[in-house]
């Protein structure tokens, strides 16, 4: 029962935080609300006995990713954009109409389906008996999931290379190449344009 109440609390916070993220115009507020949401999701992971994931959720999301975001936000000094219109005018309404229907549809489906367990035997109790969530998860990761694991490392490598490629300090000789290449007469909407 406690679990259920906690779940509802975490869930409510998470949803509220998420709503905040997509409605607040201040990026920093958004960022903080996102962290808040993620922490609540981590809480739900905890409730589900996925301890390792809960920790990783906080570390990776709240820690690494969001710090990265914060860093960039500050680095680029994005205050000026907060004065501008934050929503797509027409599209906003389409989304406001469609999204709830979509949500209803998904909820309708997921509640209509009878979710049968296959009971592979890794119940929290069993896991605890085998040495805890982290150990079992780790074992599986390096045996069953070896290939994806290695590929995931490649993905991270690519991400790293990419970040350097795109965001590294500008080298002078290349800057002069910055121009409207391939200009076929299309003028871009520049910053001055009203939305």
């Amino acid at each position, binding site marked *: 029962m406690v679990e259920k109440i906690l779940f509802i609390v975490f869930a409510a916070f998470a949803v509220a935080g998420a709503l905040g993220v997509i409605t607040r115009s201040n990026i920093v507020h958004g960022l903080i609300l996102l962290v808040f949401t993620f922490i609540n999701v981590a809480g739900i992971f905890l409730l589900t006995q996925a301890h390792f994931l809960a920790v990783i959720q906080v570390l990776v999301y709240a820690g690494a990713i969001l710090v990265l975001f914060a860093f960039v936000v500050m680095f680029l000094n994005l205050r000026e954009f907060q004065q501008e219109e934050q929503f797509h005018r027409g599209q906003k309404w389409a989304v406001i109409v469609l999204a709830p229907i979509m949500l209803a549809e998904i909820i309708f489906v997921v509640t209509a389906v009878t979710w049968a367990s296959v009971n592979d035997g890794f119940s929290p109790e069993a896991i605890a008996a085998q040495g805890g969530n982290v150990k079992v998860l780790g074992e599986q990761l390096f045996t069953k999931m070896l290939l994806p694991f290695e590929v995931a490392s*490649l993905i991270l490598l690519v991400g790293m*290379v990419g970040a350097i490629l795109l965001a590294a300090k500008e080298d002078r000789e290349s800057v002069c190449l910055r*121009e409207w290449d391939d200009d076929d007469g299309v003028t871009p909407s520049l910053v001055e344009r009203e939305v």
Partner: protein
Amino acid sequence: MTPQDLIPIIPELILVLAGLLVLVVEPFLKADKTANVAIALTALLISGAAAVGLSGREQAAFTDMIVLNDYAVFFKVLFAAAGALTVLMSPRYLEASGRHMGEYYALILFAVVGMDLMAASRDLIAFYVGLELMAVSSYLLAGFLRYQVRSNEAAMKYFLTGAFASAITLYGISLVYGMAGTTNYEQVGATLLAGGDGLGVALATALVLVGMGFKVSMAPFHMWTPDVYQGAPTPVAAFFSVGPKAAGFAAMLMVFLTVFEVSRSTWSVLFIVLAVLTMFVGNAFALTQKNIKRMLAYSSIAHVGYLLAGLGALGRAGTDYFAGEAVLFYLAAYTFMNLGAFGILAYLKTQQPATFSYSLAEFAGLGRRSPWAAVLMGLFMFSLTGMPGTAGFVGKFYLFSSVVKADLAWLAVIAVLFSAVSAYYYLRVIVYMFFREPEVEYATKEPISGPLAASLALSAAAVVVIGLLPSWVLDAAQASFGNFFG
């Protein structure tokens, strides 16, 4: 894991090692990147050769995460070929763009690895990481020319829509997992089949379809395609138009035939409807394009429409994999002709790096200025149109015959009519090249670079050979379904 498990991934291992080697070598190279080009090219060739060497084998590896069979081999060879041709056409182009860096080749290699995994995977997790490896590399390749607004924009658009789409797919995959309790294709398929078709399966089908449809630019999830192709460096656009697309189809065929066996009737109808939509969208948009790169992008969407018709037929055909073979063959044929067409664009860009904007008007009088380029472009255009004697025709022939075989003659009629419409914009290129005189004088041309010429020549040769003596590729395509389920 046993050492045995490494055999199926030999081609990928080669590529990964080469990719890492490229990254390591890069800091030691100055302006001349020949070494890295050579490494990448060699790796791709060896990888392809290795894949050929592995053909005929059947082996599951990494706890059934991936398999080695002729199906995977077919795609591995195809991806290696596409990668090699892309690498060949890149150096001069990148030099002209002022950004010739070894990382580029590493990214191509990694993308090919991702695509190989998509084709070979037998598990949704492996599929997903393969997909993401390819996607992440692709985003970077699209934005490779970071000082160019279009390249940035292309990367951003590709990234946003790609991430959005993969989130949707992922959601679908999670539902599949929820229903089956496993992620292995065959097990999932069996479980779902036992559970019967239901709302959950339908929703999951739809969600997965969207994500994969995005990768192959199926309407209405295609809209990134023209912008990304236009903004990305031309060789990259060439690569995109064949690599990720073929990988998407490779995964799609596999996933829908195994995982979603139960919802066959749903997805075959979806594919048929979306095929018509995609054909329409691709052709209608392509008609008004003045920019050849965008035109080719839309045309690639149209081709996806034809391929989807094949998938629809496959869904209708029961255990007859004729349509699947046709799709494979078509992808192979399409790879060469499209790479060739983009190769010509790359060549022209290297001729006038500062001014060439891929506009149709700049093709005027090409037949006089560089007759060989014009003749080859003509060949590729005719092939894309589906004129007999070229790979494009045999591909269409095969594909539409599979559609007809599945008693979808009406769909074949729609498809061929659309391909007649497509003839208009392909011909327009020929019209400009041969029938019109240029409005301005163009600078004298410099000789074509060796690798680029080789790439074009190989593409053209492939187009003609597949067009006239298709048995070779046909056999491969048929064999790939021969040991489909072991």
